[in-house]
């Protein structure tokens, strides 16, 4: 089941080479990380707690400068944050004084005319299934609705890459399940510009349900220790025995080697 995935899937969208990040200049959290994402692909990153997965996403988005290595978006080296890469946070971040519509429109201000911004924002809100809630404030919405707004905002910026940092971790299981079931069709919808998604998650069921490929991080400092292709048809079902096999495989990857035996 475990395999190294070396096939070429056309032009890479986002690529990083030997990326590393260190606190205080020398204490590397992760090091020598090279990954690639391709069109219409959802790539997951898993690893034990403390391997710097969230930091890695921020370095990829150039929100934090890397200590070593380089990141490329469509073969152009990235130096600064770009709205072509949208980050969806683990702690759902919506501006409390803005309505749902304004929360989405904020990324379009001064980039397109106000009418057009409203139109795009409404379209994205509809895409995430919140039609009719444009005037609601975050306080008036559930956690699941707020996260949909954050995703709509991310999509409204017309990104080609979306980085998702444990996007469902603060949601209750039912809400998280329904959003998971929809997320793939939302992000890879012809209505938006998205090409690929990188998802960081601890939930192995979530990873197997959503990912096309999985990078496993491990060690100190963390490196990519394995790359696994999830070769299951969509929509995926947890009832499928193969689904469970993938979960087991990932679980083994994450367990300390001595306890695996």
């Amino acid at each position, binding site marked *: 089941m475990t395999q190294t995935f070396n096939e070429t899937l056309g032009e890479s969208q986002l690529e990083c080479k030997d990326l590393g990040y260190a606190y205080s200049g020398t204490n590397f959290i992760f090091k020598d990380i090279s990954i690639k994402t391709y069109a219409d692909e959802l790539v997951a990153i898993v690893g034990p707690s403390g391997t710097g997965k969230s930091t890695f996403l921020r370095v990829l988005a150039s929100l934090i400068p890397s200590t070593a290595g380089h990141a490329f978006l469509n073969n152009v080296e990235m130096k600064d944050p770009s709205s072509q890469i949208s980050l969806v946070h683990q702690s*759902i971040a919506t501006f409390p004084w803005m309505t749902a519509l304004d929360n989405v429109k904020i990324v379009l201000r001064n980039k397109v005319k106000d009418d057009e911004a409203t139109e795009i924002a409404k379209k994205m809100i509809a895409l995430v299934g919140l039609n009719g809630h444009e005037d609601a404030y*975050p306080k008036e919405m559930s956690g699941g609705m707020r996260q949909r707004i954050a995703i709509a905002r991310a999509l409204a910026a017309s990104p080609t890459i979306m980085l998702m940092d444990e996007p469902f971790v603060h949601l209750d299981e039912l809400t998280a399940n329904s959003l998971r079931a929809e997320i793939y069709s939302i992000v890879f919808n012809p209505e938006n510009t998205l090409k690929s998604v990188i998802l960081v998650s601890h939930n192995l069921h979530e990873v197997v349900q959503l990912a096309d490929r999985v990078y496993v991080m491990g060690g100190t400092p963390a490196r990519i220790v394995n790359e696994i292709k999830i070769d299951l048809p969509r929509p995926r079902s947890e009832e499928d025995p193969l689904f469970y096999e993938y979960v087991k495989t990932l679980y083994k990857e994450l367990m300390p080697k001595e306890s695996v035996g």
Partner: protein
Amino acid sequence: MELITIILATLASLSRVLMLILISIVSGWILSYVAVKNRKFENIYISFVNIFESIPVIGFLPIVLVIFISGLGGTLGVEIAADFLVFDAIVWNIWIGQYQAFKTIPQHLIEVSENYNFGWWGKMKNLYIPFSYPRVSSDIFPSFADALFYIMVSEVFSVGITAYKVFGIGTLIVQATSTGDLTSIYECLGVLAVGVVVITLAFGSFSKHAIAKYGLNTSIEIKRHIGYWRPHIRKWSKDVIPTPRVSKYATKMKMGTENIQTAVTKVRTSRSFEKIGKYIGTGIAWMFLIFIGYSSINVILSVPHSQWAIYLAQTPNLLYQMGVDYIRVIVVTIVSFVFAVSLGYYLANHKKASTISLPIIQTISAFPAPAYFPLIFAATAPLFLHNLSSVETELYVMLLCFLGTFYYVFFGFWVGVRAIPTEFLEVTQNYKIGFFTKMRRIILPATFPYLVTGLSSTINSAWGGLAVGEFWPNIYGNQTLQVHTGMMKVISKGLANGDMGIAAWTSLLFAIVVGVYSIVFTRNLMDLARKKYVIEEGIYAA
């Protein structure tokens, strides 16, 4: 002047300030705890603090004049008057900050403390007090600066030909400036500067530690280096004060039948402490209310009936003078706001510049403007080769107000920017949101609660600045700084001429106007800030 006298006077003034800050903090913990536990008390307490927080210190002048200066009189009266003004300048800010901290303690932590029967003291020591440290540490800077401002101007009160004074650096500086004794002024300022720098650095260090260790959701590293002295001090304190630590017994307690009984008794004792705490809190609140009511009645009764007709006839003119002062306050506030936000935004985005300049700004801000302003005046006034025109006088008064006020809105903005969760800043970076959109839609709304508090303090201190600057006899040598029109000048001149009646009446009028203004405007603005513009509520991490 003897150097030892200057040092002792500085120590006296700083001790007053530090003691009052300590009293404010300790009383704030108790009152805030009672407030979060008792809904009825909370309603009274918060309304009361909100109103008083928004009234300028100078609005309390009737109480000071009638009860302390005129009533008690002498050194004791001036001592209490000075302490009262300083206490009033610092306490509301600290109390409301502690209350907000207590109100925002995560429910799961409260449940842990209930679950394991921490008891009243255990909860205070292990949860409530530590959780409030970041707020206390950020409130302490403006409070210290405000306190020094008022200690400088209230250590000496001249009523007619009698000057009441208490021993302190403010008194020495007034003496030195009125005689034009430059050497003594420099010595006083030098010693005061040393004291201010030492205390500011200590506060700065406490603030860094408090935010790093006790703040939630912060990426600031906790420094664990405890230095050479701390273990020794700990050992010393254990040897000298071998007080048993209650929490040790709690953790060592085995849950046998006998000990369960002990635990139940502890819980009951803790609840009875809570009840006592509630009674104490309610008592304190009522004492304050009765005190304020009594003072207001005293103001009215202190004026002979025959004088009323005269004062009432002067009232329209006094209101006009107050209007002119309001314009001055608005101008100073706008200038302070623009300057503070520009500087604050620049520093928030330039780490190196902020590392160097923030401690400097903190130190300068704590240095009371009335202490060094006479020197600025002495150095620049002779450049005007004629008597100061009204515009030039206005500029001096405005400069004094600005020097004593802009820090509040600056620190408010700065703390507000620092409190914006990283996620939001990442959103602005991620989507390359432009400067003006970012300021208008995100930074200013996100810092709104802090800005309102900062602006309120700025307005508050601008009134204090006007009270000092509108009529300043012997500002340097025999020169007098005075504006043509201004309510604060009427009060100061009334005091200087021994006409307590006009001073008390004008300040009472002022207290009524600012009281009404505070209730209908400032308080609502603060309510709006606390209800709508709380950026932390934008993070959903249930």
